[in-house]
C-alpha cells in the first residue's frame, strides 16, 4: 500500500490551523495533516515521526517561526519547509530563504492565490528524491551555474546538502573559485557538482576573491556531466568504459575515505534481499548482515520502549570505532581508527555519507 505523506502545520491561531487542515486534506495526494500551536511542540513531533513537509507561521509567541526553522534545518535537513505569513517584509523573506526554506508564502487572500498555494504544496509533496535544488525545482546545480554564467552575473552561490556546505564564486559570468570541506579550486567545484540535491542561496559577490579556477566554466561543467553520464548510464558503454567508470568511482570513494580519515564504509540498501557494498574492508557481507540485524533490533527497541526514532548507533572495538546511520534509502556503517574519540564521530560520519552515493 502506498504510504501517505505527513504534513505538520504550526500556527498559534487555532482557527487558521483548522482552515489549513481542511484545505490541505483535499489535496490529490491526500496527505495526513498534523497541527500544533507551538514551535517547541512541533520540534518534538518532528523527532517522533517522519514528516514530509512543515508549514510554519512566522509570528508566534515564545519560539518564533525563524527560530523553529533554524533548528529544523540543522536537525532535519531533508524536511521540506514552507513559511506562511501575513507579514509583508522583504527582510523576513530573505532571512527565511537564507534558512533554506522551500517556499515563502504570504497567507493567501484570494481564491486564485489559494489555488496556486495548493498547487505549490502538492508539487512539494510530490517532488521525489530524484534530485533538484530547492528554490529552482527540477534544475540541477549544473543548470544553475550555467544560468549564472550565461547571464554574466557576479555572485557567491552557497550550496548546502545535509551537513555539507560548499561555496562557488562567480565574477562577471566567470567561475573564479570554489570551496568545500577544506578543499579549494577545481577539485572543490567537482565535488560540489556531485551533489544531486540540496539548497542554494545567492549571496552578494566578493569582488576581491582570489582566483583559483582558470578553466572556463563550460569546460568544467562538460567534464563533470560526462563523468556523471558514465556513472548513470553504464549500459550504453562498452565493458572497458564501464570498468573505467567503476574504477573512477571506486578511486573517488577511497579518496573520500582517506580525506575524511575513516578506515572503511559499508553501504546497505533497504530491502531484505539487498546486497551490501564495502570500501576499505574485506568483511563487507558479514558487516552488512550485522547492519541489517542491528537496524532491526534498534527499531524493535524503539517501538517497544516508545523511545522515538533511531538516530544512530556507535560502537567501539579494539581495532575500530564504528557509526551506523541511515541516509535516504540506505544504511551506512562507517569505520574509524580506534584512537579517534567516539563522541566526535557522528558528525563526520554524516558528512561522509551525505555525498557517498551522489
Amino acid at each position: 500500500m502506498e504510504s501517505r505523506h505527513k504534513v505538520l502545520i504550526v500556527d498559534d491561531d487555532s482557527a487558521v490551523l483548522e482552515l489549513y487542515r481542511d484545505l490541505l486534506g483535499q489535496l490529490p495526494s491526500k496527505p495526513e495533516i498534523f497541527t500544533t500551536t507551538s514551535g517547541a511542540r512541533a520540534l518534538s513531533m518532528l523527532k517522533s515521526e517522519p514528516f514530509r513537509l512543515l508549514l510554519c507561521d512566522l509570528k508566534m509567541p515564545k519560539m518564533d517561526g525563524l527560530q523553529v526553522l533554524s533548528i529544523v534545518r540543522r536537525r532535519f535537513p531533508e524536511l521540506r519547509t514552507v513559511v506562511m505569513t501575513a507579514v509583508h517584509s522583504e527582510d523576513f523573506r530573505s532571512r527565511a530563504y537564507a534558512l533554506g526554506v522551500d517556499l515563502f508564502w504570504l497567507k493567501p487572500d484570494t481564491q486564485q492565490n489559494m489555488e496556486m498555494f495548493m498547487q505549490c504544496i502538492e508539487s512539494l509533496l510530490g517532488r521525489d528524491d530524484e534530485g533538484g535544488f530547492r528554490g529552482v525545482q527540477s534544475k540541477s546545480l549544473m543548470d544553475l551555474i550555467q544560468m549564472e554564467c550565461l547571464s554574466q552575473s557576479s555572485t557567491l552561490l552557497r550550496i548546502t546538502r545535509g551537513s555539507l556546505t560548499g561555496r562557488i564564486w562567480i565574477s562577471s559570468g566567470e567561475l573564479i573559485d570554489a570551496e568545500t570541506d577544506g578543499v579549494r579550486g577545481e577539485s572543490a567545484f567537482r565535488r560540489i557538482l556531485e551533489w544531486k540535491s540540496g539548497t542554494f542561496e545567492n549571496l552578494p559577490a566578493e569582488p576581491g576573491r582570489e582566483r583559483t579556477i582558470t578553466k572556463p566554466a563550460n569546460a568544467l561543467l562538460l567534464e563533470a556531466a560526462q563523468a556523471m553520464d558514465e556513472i548513470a548510464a553504464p549500459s550504453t558503454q562498452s565493458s572497458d568504459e564501464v570498468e573505467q567508470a567503476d574504477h573512477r568511482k571506486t578511486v573517488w570513494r577511497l579518496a573520500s575515505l582517506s580525506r575524511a580519515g575513516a578506515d572503511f564504509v559499508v553501504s546497505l540498501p533497504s530491502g531484505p534481499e539487498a546486497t551490501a557494498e564495502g570500501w576499505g574492508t574485506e568483511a563487507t557481507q558479514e558487516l552488512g548482515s550485522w547492519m541489517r540485524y542491528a537496524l532491526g533490533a534498534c527499531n524493535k527497541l524503539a517501538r517497544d520502549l516508545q523511545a522515538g526514532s533511531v538516530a544512530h548507533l556507535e560502537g567501539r572495538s579494539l581495532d575500530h570505532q564504528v557509526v551506523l546511520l541511515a541516509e535516504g534509502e540506505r544504511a551506512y556503517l562507517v569505520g574509524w581508527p580506534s584512537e579517534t574519540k567516539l563522541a566526535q564521530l557522528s558528525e563526520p560520519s554524516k558528512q561522509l555519507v551525505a555525498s557517498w552515493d551522489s
Partner: protein
Amino acid sequence: MGFLSLFSKPSPGVQVLPSGTLTVDRNNHILATTVSSACSQEVLQEIGDQVLTLFREARKAQLSLSELTIHFSSLKITARELRGGAIIFLAPKHSFNAAS
C-alpha cells in the same frame, strides 16, 4: 461515593522511559539494576536480550565490540561488554540534554 467512578473515563497511560543501570550475565539473567520498579521485568529482559545479541552478532561479523551506544530521539542506551554479559546504561534525553 464509589459509584461516581462508573462515570470516569480511563485516562491513557504515559509510558515512562526507563532510566538507570542494568547488569545482565551472558544468559540474560538480571544481576543488578537501579531502574525503577515501574519499568517491568519484561522490558529490562528485552533490552538485555537485544544488547547481548547485538554484541554476539557483531563478533560473527569480525567486529568484536566492547561498547555500543544507541541514540534514539528520546533515549540513549550505552552498553559495555562484560565477560559475555553486559552493563547497560539507560539515559532518557530531556530537552536540556537532547543535543548530547
